[in-house]
């Protein structure tokens, strides 16, 4: 047992029952209150959740999350995000090990299956509730300057291009994929409004990280976990991630993304209308929204190829390579269209 968890158990007022679930490069150790019966107890949130990470990548991910939770502490009650209870890094037999303990959050991941609902009129409640939560988060987090001082989107674009260049040099086999978008991003940045500023973003805002206490969630019933990706981005970054992953984990890491994304981003429909509303609310002109979209794609590409903080198995990386090859080819054939405007015929 990690020393931090052991110390935490020693000062626990009451006995705690533990569970262990596997994580990339580590594990999730969850503490539940012991004893008790009945429906309320069955639905009780865990008392705390400890994440352990091993190796440089696992530690880096937990360190990022610990820093993010520390920054989010003043907003934790209002936004329903976990509180950081403990954090420690150590060495076990020469291997880096880290442990982070955070408060447990109630609820289960939101279900929002757009595939089944698309024929119906209107947008799913979960989509709207998560969007509301995100807007509130952006307002409050920007006020607290969570992701450091504001920067221009063009500056972020330059950073993204430089990062892609560095990643392509480190992973020569992925260079063709990684270097496909930077010219588009640079071109979009040249056309975008110079005054558009960055906002704090969650970084991995998908259904698995959004917990709803009730089957039909409202803003007040949502809590958001896994903050290792907190950073600066465009106002559309998280909402695009969320919309792109409607349907949960199966879409998130599965083939068929291209067809799905075509449907969501590049076809006229309520989702695209919703995204346009978001761009307008953020004060983005069409050119800036296009930059935001391609910045999102560049970040997502790097993440899914396993170059971010998350670990990807060889099979997952191979699948992502094949899938993104298709997406990028499709975009190139259409000269990198603007998702927020009608598709050129």
């Amino acid at each position: 047992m990690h020393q931090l968890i052991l110390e935490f158990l020693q000062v626990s007022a009451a006995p705690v029952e533990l569970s262990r679930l596997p994580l990339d490069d580590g594990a999730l150790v969850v503490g539940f209150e012991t004893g008790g019966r009945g429906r309320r107890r069955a639905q009780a949130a865990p008392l705390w959740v400890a994440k352990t990470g091993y190796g440089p990548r696992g530690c880096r991910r937990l360190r990022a999350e610990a820093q993010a939770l520390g920054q989010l502490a003043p907003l934790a009650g209002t936004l329903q995000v976990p509180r950081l209870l403990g954090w420690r890094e150590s060495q076990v037999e020469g291997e880096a090990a880290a442990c982070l303990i955070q408060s447990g959050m109630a609820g289960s991941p939101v279900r929002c299956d757009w595939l089944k609902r698309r024929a119906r009129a209107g947008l799913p409640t979960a989509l709207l509730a998560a969007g509301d939560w995100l807007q509130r988060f952006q307002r409050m987090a920007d006020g607290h300057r969570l992701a450091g001082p504001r920067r221009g989107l063009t500056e972020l674009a330059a950073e993204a291009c430089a990062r892609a260049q560095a990643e392509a040099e480190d992973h020569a086999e992925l260079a063709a994929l990684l270097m496909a978008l930077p010219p588009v991003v640079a071109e979009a940045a040249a056309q975008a409004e110079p005054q558009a500023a960055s906002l704090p973003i969650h970084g991995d805002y998908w259904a698995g990280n959004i917990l709803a206490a009730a089957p039909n969630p409202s803003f007040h019933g949502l809590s958001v976990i896994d903050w290792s990706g907190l950073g600066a981005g465009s106002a559309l970054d998280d909402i695009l991630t969320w919309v792109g992953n409607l349907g949960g984990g199966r879409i998130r890491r599965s083939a068929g993304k291209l067809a799905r994304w075509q449907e969501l981003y590049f076809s006229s429909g309520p989702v695209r209308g919703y995204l346009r509303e978001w761009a307008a609310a953020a004060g983005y002109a069409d050119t800036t929204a296009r930059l935001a979209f391609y910045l999102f794609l560049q970040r997502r590409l790097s993440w899914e190829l396993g170059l971010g903080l998350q670990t990807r198995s060889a099979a997952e990386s191979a699948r992502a390579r094949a899938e993104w090859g298709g997406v990028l080819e499709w975009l190139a054939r259409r000269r990198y269209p603007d998702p927020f405007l009608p598709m050129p015929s």
Partner: protein
Amino acid sequence: MGLGTLAYLGLRRLLDRGPLAGRLDVRMRQVIAVAPWRLRLPPRLARELAVRELGVGDAAALSGLRAALGMEYRERFRQSHRCVGAWLGPRLVAFVWMRRGPAHLRASFGCTWQISAPMAWLYDLYSDPQVLGTVPHLYAYLRQHPPGEGLQQFVGQTDYDNLRSRQAHRSLGYEVRATLWSWHWGRRSAHVSRSQAARRWRWHGGQGLIPVPLFAVGSERATVATVAGRAPELRLQCECGRQVEMQGERLVCGCGRELGTMQAGVAQVGKPMPYWGEIPQAEMERVLERGREVGWRAAAQELLPEALAEYVTDPERAAFHELLPLPANARILDVGAGWGGIAARLARHYEVVALEGVAERARWIALRRQQEGLERLRVLQGDVHQTPLAQGQFDGVIANGIMEWVALMDHTATPTAVQLSFLQRLRDLLAPGGMIYLAIENRFGWAEFRGALDHSGLPYTSLLPRPLARWVCARSRSYRAHFNVGYRTYTHSYAGYRDLFEQVGLDLRACWISPLGYNRPEKLIALQTAAIRFSQRQAARSWPRRTLRRALGRAGVWRRIGSDFVFLLQAREERGEAAARVAASAPGAHGS
């Protein structure tokens, strides 16, 4: 305000203004604690308020806010008490004092509470009444500073009369840990206390020390205290009672008896066990030889069948160690270590002794030890009953998939009796506060109903009545059934295991279900409905599956048909023994 509070205030009013005023005084006080996960932090003031540590230089500001009660502020700083204050611009608006170690609080009416808590004690909390909402920010600061060592829990005391203080703490989400009623009649006084741990009232006739046990006795804290300072060497003991020593390559007792030898990194003690395993003996020898040439991992991947190679090289075999409440210097015995997957991984975290009966496997573990440079792993070849391990020397004993097989090695008694004797032996090897990790199948597990092969090599035999299972095994041509003469590999239901533990004097500390099987312990779910539901957070997509999963996701159902059980057991101690140990481990504790 609840009915209890109203009744209490009514009683106080009656006593203060009635004929007994000035003669009888009745008061209630509470020890309260705020758990960090329940701390509610209002976002108000978050940006304006600056919270920081105060020092001797701030004594004037402290006195300006409120004159010191009891010890002077400067004196507190001199005695290394810590003070944290909240500033609104240049103005100090709140502060709290803190000191580490057990608290001895002298109450205002002549009795002392002794609270043994391995945590900091907060006292003298003051907040400017004109600036509300500052206290949670002080707590939040204490929780995060110093980084990585912030306080996990806050404990304080409050007068039941002080409604404002109680309300403020309730808004933080506190819980009551102990309650004290005091009666004063002239010079005489009496107290009744009840703590959350004891859950019963205790009468204290006169004045004196009133212990308030904040934490349940027998917690992990006691284990840690037991482990510290023990000799790190493995102790082998001869029948004559003397310690066994190594002389060259021989293990010799002072009485002159030779108990075994040390060969190729393996201490061979006791009678050698005939070879048995997943592959024939000749093949095992070849794997060993190849392992010496190209390394154990490469040899396993090259020569073993794919599934077996994966099992042998699986780095997650000891993933359960993250649930073992044992400190880094704990000494662990892995009984029936097999291919050494668990022992080798555990040796990265603890001092491990791998005990294996089959010579070839013991040599394989020694090979891993040598090639991986596992200094903290020792390999013993022998039987758990015959190996002269001194009693009471291990903080943890691992029995992963062993107990169901032990009856095959001893045909002199019934399988259940042999299993009981095995458990008794493990119990004897435990140091005080030590734990047994026992992983085994559920006799009526879901996998068994679905036709998984039982230890007889046949499906469904565990579900049959024992005589019928014996009859089936006697007529089967399966290799395992031939080996398993008379069906002696008993598994039990949850209730059956509890009965066995009860008979041996083992307390069940925790029980997990391992949905992937006990040989893949990366997923261990506590046998509790909330934990089961948590593990099923990723809901199934179709509603019939979701509904079924929800209906079956209950502790009662999993207890009956969960596939594999993993138990964490602790030897039951006599009451006096436990009390003495806890008293010795509690820093600064002394009885009333």
